[in-house]
């Protein structure tokens, strides 16, 4: 149980940042993870009044405030239209609706949890993170920093930025039982013409690889997808824990990647068909 004497409901990011420079204070996201810790801290910093619970969409990007709940993320119409079923698939297994109404995007990303579905999704999509002090950086840079330097540790995550460069995305995870932590998370996306695959719950923190093989350049078939899946599985270290063995995880990386990549091919086909239909219609007119 997290114990503390002070509750700071801050009025500005600057105030939050100043308070967070004190080692004894912690920033609150949804508090679901923090709450499980048995420790006493000086105070907690609540960002609820800073308007960070909004998702903004422009021509170029989605800006997802750190205090957006996972449920609001899952239900956002613009994001659903943009990311299709992958968005829902990456979030729907996270415990339950009441849980996702409380858990935040900021807490999920800042925490860099090994098991995180959310981190896996945004890594494949080549998202960026925006900190109050450190400014913007690729999520891949933040996620791979080990360990976090003091500056980032004491910074405030303002938002996750998703540039609109995603052409297709597919998400899959394996769980031993519904709503449990995942055994493996896997996301494949085509971003700016490049295939990217992220894998989390290895059980180590999610990491990504871009396609360096050209295996998919002449088209995605069951054979090229399987070969690519095998190549991807060789790019990631895996480990064993109570949920699964390192070997099992390796095999599953290949399987999930193959399936994800086949799904990307379907999406691309549908988009081409749509574009062709629009062009034909335009030509007729």
């Amino acid at each position: 149980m997290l114990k503390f004497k002070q509750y700071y409901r801050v009025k500005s990011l600057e105030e939050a940042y100043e308070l967070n420079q004190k080692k004894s204070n912690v920033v609150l996201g949804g508090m679901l993870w923090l709450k499980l810790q048995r420790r006493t801290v000086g105070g907690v910093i609540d960002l609820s009044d800073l308007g960070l619970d909004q998702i903004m969409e422009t021509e170029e990007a989605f800006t997802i405030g750190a205090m957006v709940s996972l449920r609001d993320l899952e239900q956002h119409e613009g994001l659903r239209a943009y990311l299709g079923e992958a968005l829902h698939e990456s979030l729907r297994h996270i415990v339950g609706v009441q849980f996702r109404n409380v858990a935040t995007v900021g807490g999920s990303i800042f925490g860099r949890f090994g098991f995180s579905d959310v981190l896996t999704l945004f890594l494949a999509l080549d998202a960026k993170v925006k900190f109050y002090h450190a400014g913007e950086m690729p999520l891949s840079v933040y996620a791979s920093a080990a360990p976090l330097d003091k500056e980032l540790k004491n910074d405030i995550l303002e938002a996750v930025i998703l540039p609109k460069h995603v052409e297709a995305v597919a998400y899959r995870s394996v769980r031993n039982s519904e709503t449990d932590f995942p055994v493996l998370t896997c996301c494949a996306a085509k971003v700016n013409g490049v295939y990217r695959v992220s894998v989390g719950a290895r059980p180590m923190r999610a990491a990504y690889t871009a396609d360096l093989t050209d295996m998919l350049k002449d088209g995605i078939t069951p054979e090229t997808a399987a070969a690519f899946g095998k190549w991807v599985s060789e790019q990631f270290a895996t480990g064993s824990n109570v949920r699964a063995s390192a070997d099992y995880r390796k095999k599953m990386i290949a399987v999930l990647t193959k399936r994800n990549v086949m799904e990307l091919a379907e999406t691309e086909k549908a988009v081409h068909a749509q574009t062709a239909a629009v062009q034909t219609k335009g030509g007729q007119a």
Partner: protein
Amino acid sequence: MELKFTLNEVPRVVEISADTLLLDLLRSMKCYSVKRGCETGNCGLCTVFVDERPVLSCSTLAARVEGRSVVTLEGLREEAEEYGAYIADEGAEQCGFCNPGLMMNAIALYRENPEATDDEIKEYLAGNLCRCSGYEGQLRGIRSYLEFKKGEVRHE
């Protein structure tokens, strides 16, 4: 610290510690329908509405409901009785400990998606664990409750 909020439509002002959890506050205010289950965010027994959204009170800081509206099953008597009859009819309740949390979430489901399919019901209620029932009776009960509510709307 002082906390002002609305509990089951009644404005309340209470003294809390900075780290009081909503679950503890509500039980201290005699809302005994709010159950203490896992306290790790997994079981859904502690579900209440904050501004009409179902949340886990075991993982919500009481200070965060300042100025907001909290509803527990005590504030939803009529709906709870209606729904409870369908659950009882299906023999879905055994020890009954999970039931208040399940009812809160089933009511939230109805309000959000009255036309829910079986898959949608299962997904919406995935965060409500029950150690006795095996879930099948609950699913039947919820299905009948949604059907009954549809009929009610049709007859209005």
